[in-house]
C-alpha cells in the first residue's frame, strides 16, 4: 500500500477515522476499506465488527479470506430475537467466544461505526472498549491495530473529543484542496514520546481502495511586514525626564536624607529642643546601605 503515513504501522495503534456527514462524497468508509486491505496483508486475522447498515458493502469490496465479519446491524437491539451480535452484547467477550485466539496470532480489529455504540451504550463505555482492545491484551493475543469509524457530526463536541483522546491517530476526512484528488484529510498523530504531529493530505482512492497520489498540503504562513514587528519605544516623547545627567547625579548624591546620622544636623537639633526623644539612624559599617530606590524592582 502506498499510504505514506508510515506512522500507522506500529503496535497497539488506535486509529479513528472521522467522517463529516456534510461531506459524504469524501466519506471515510473507502479509507476504512483500504485500511482493512492493508491490515489483511500484515496480520493473521482482521475482525470486522459492523454496526452500521451501510457497512454491508464492505464484504463485496475486500478480500475476505483473512477477514471475519460480524453482522451487528441486522438486529441491532435484538428486537427480532435473533442470536446475532447486537449493540447490547459486549464485543470483547463476544470475540473471545467466537474465536479460538491464541497467543501467537497477530490480529486487528475494525469497528464500523462507533456511532451506534455511543448511541445505544455510552461514550465512556465505547472509549473503554476501544482502549481495552488497543492497549491491553484482553483478547489473549497481540492486537496490531484497532481502526474505528466515527460520524463526528452526529455527536456532541464532548463525545467526539473523548473518543479522540483515546485514539493515537485521528484522520478527519474533508474536501480535497485541489481538483486532482478525490479525498482530503487532516491527520493528527500522537507519538509515544508525547509529541503531536498534524498534517493535511490530499489523496485519491482507486476502485480497489488503494490510496494513491498522496500529497501533503503545506500550510502557508504569511510573513508579516517588518514594520509591524519593530517595537515602539514607550519612553519616547515623554513630557518628563527619565534619565539623569552627571551633574544631576552628583547633586543627588549630596542630598542628605532625613534621620541619617550627621554631626552638623544632630547638633542643630539637640540645641533646638530639650526633653524630647530623637531618632537618628546611623548605619553600621557592615550595613549594606542602599541609596537606590528600594521599590525599584516593583512594576509600579
Amino acid at each position, binding site marked *: 500500500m502506498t499510504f505514506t503515513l508510515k506512522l500507522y504501522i506500529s503496535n497497539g495503534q488506535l486509529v479513528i477515522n472521522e467522517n463529516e*456527514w456534510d461531506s459524504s462524497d469524501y466519506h471515510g468508509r473507502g479509507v476504512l476499506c483500504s485500511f482493512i486491505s492493508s491490515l489483511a496483508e500484515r496480520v493473521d486475522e482482521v475482525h470486522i465488527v459492523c454496526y452500521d447498515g451501510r457497512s454491508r458493502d464492505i464484504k463485496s469490496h475486500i478480500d475476505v479470506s483473512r477477514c471475519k465479519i460480524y453482522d451487528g446491524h441486522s438486529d441491532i437491539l435484538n428486537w427480532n430475537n435473533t442470536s446475532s451480535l447486537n449493540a447490547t452484547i459486549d464485543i470483547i467477550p463476544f470475540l473471545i467466544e467466537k474465536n479460538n485466539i491464541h497467543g501467537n496470532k497477530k490480529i486487528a480489529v475494525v469497528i464500523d461505526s462507533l456511532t451506534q455504540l455511543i448511541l445505544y451504550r455510552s461514550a465512556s463505555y465505547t472509549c473503554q472498549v476501544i482502549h481495552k482492545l488497543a492497549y491491553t491484551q484482553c483478547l489473549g493475543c497481540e492486537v496490531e491495530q484497532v481502526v474505528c469509524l466515527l460520524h463526528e457530526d452526529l455527536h456532541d463536541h464532548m463525545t467526539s473529543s473523548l473518543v479522540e483522546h483515546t485514539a493515537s491517530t485521528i484522520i478527519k476526512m474533508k474536501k480535497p484542496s485541489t481538483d486532482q484528488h478525490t479525498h482530503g484529510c487532516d491527520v493528527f498523530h500522537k507519538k509515544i514520546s508525547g509529541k503531536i504531529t498534524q498534517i493535511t493530505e490530499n489523496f485519491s482512492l482507486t476502485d480497489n481502495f488503494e490510496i494513491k497520489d498522496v500529497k501533503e498540503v503545506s500550510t502557508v504562513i504569511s510573513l508579516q511586514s517588518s514594520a509591524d514587528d519593530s517595537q515602539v519605544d514607550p519612553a519616547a516623547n515623554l513630557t518628563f525626564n527619565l534619565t539623569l545627567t552627571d551633574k544631576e547625579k552628583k547633586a543627588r548624591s549630596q542630598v542628605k536624607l532625613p534621620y541619617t546620622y550627621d554631626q552638623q544636623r544632630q547638633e542643630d537639633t539637640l540645641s533646638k529642643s530639650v526633653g524630647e526623644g530623637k531618632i537618628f539612624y546611623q548605619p553600621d559599617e557592615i550595613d549594606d546601605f542602599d541609596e537606590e530606590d528600594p521599590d525599584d524592582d516593583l512594576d509600579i
Partner: protein
Amino acid sequence: MFLEINNLIDVKQTERLNGWFAGISESSVEGSFLVHHFLSHSLKTSTPVCFVALSQSFGHYNTISQKFGTNLTTQKETNKLVFVEGLKLLGNTCCKDCDKGDNPIDDKSVLTNLLQSISTSYKELKEKNGCSPTIIIDNISVLIVLGFDTRDVITFCHYLHELIHEDIGEKGCLVLYASNGKQNGDGSNENLMELDGP
C-alpha cells in the same frame, strides 16, 4: 410537476427506486407533497407500496391520488397497496397496555408491534407481486410527538432500513417524511434525519 420532481431527483419516469432511502424534511415549505409524489411514482412504475399513515386517513390520500390519476382503492384490491393505519395500531397497543397501568410509550413493544405489521405487509406484497415494495411513512415525527424516545425511533428506522436491504438482489425503497423540527421544539427530528439518512 411529476416530471419536474423526477428530473430534480434524477429519476426516469419508468425507473424503480430500488435501494433508495429517501428522507423528506422541511425547511419553511410544507414537504408533504413529496409523499404523494413518491406514492404515485411507485404505483405508476408497478412497484407495490406499503403505506404507513401516522397523520392522515385513507380517504385523504385517496382523494389526492385520484388527482394524480391513481385510485388507491383499486390498488388495494389488486394487492398493489397495503395501507397500514399506524395510529390505529399504536392506539390499540397503547390502550391494551394502559389497562395495566404502565406508560405504554416507554415500552418498546409498541414500536416492535408496528414494525412487525409493516414487515408482514412488506413480505406479503413482495411475495404476491414478485418485486421489492416501497415503504412510505407519513410522518415519522408523529412518533416523537407521541413521546417515543428519539433513540427508539432511530432504531425503528434502522430496522426498516434493514428490512428493505434484507434480500440479496433487488432492494426495496424507504421513504420517510419528517415534519419541521423547529416547529416541534427540539432537534429530535434533525437527529433522526442525520442518523438514518441515505
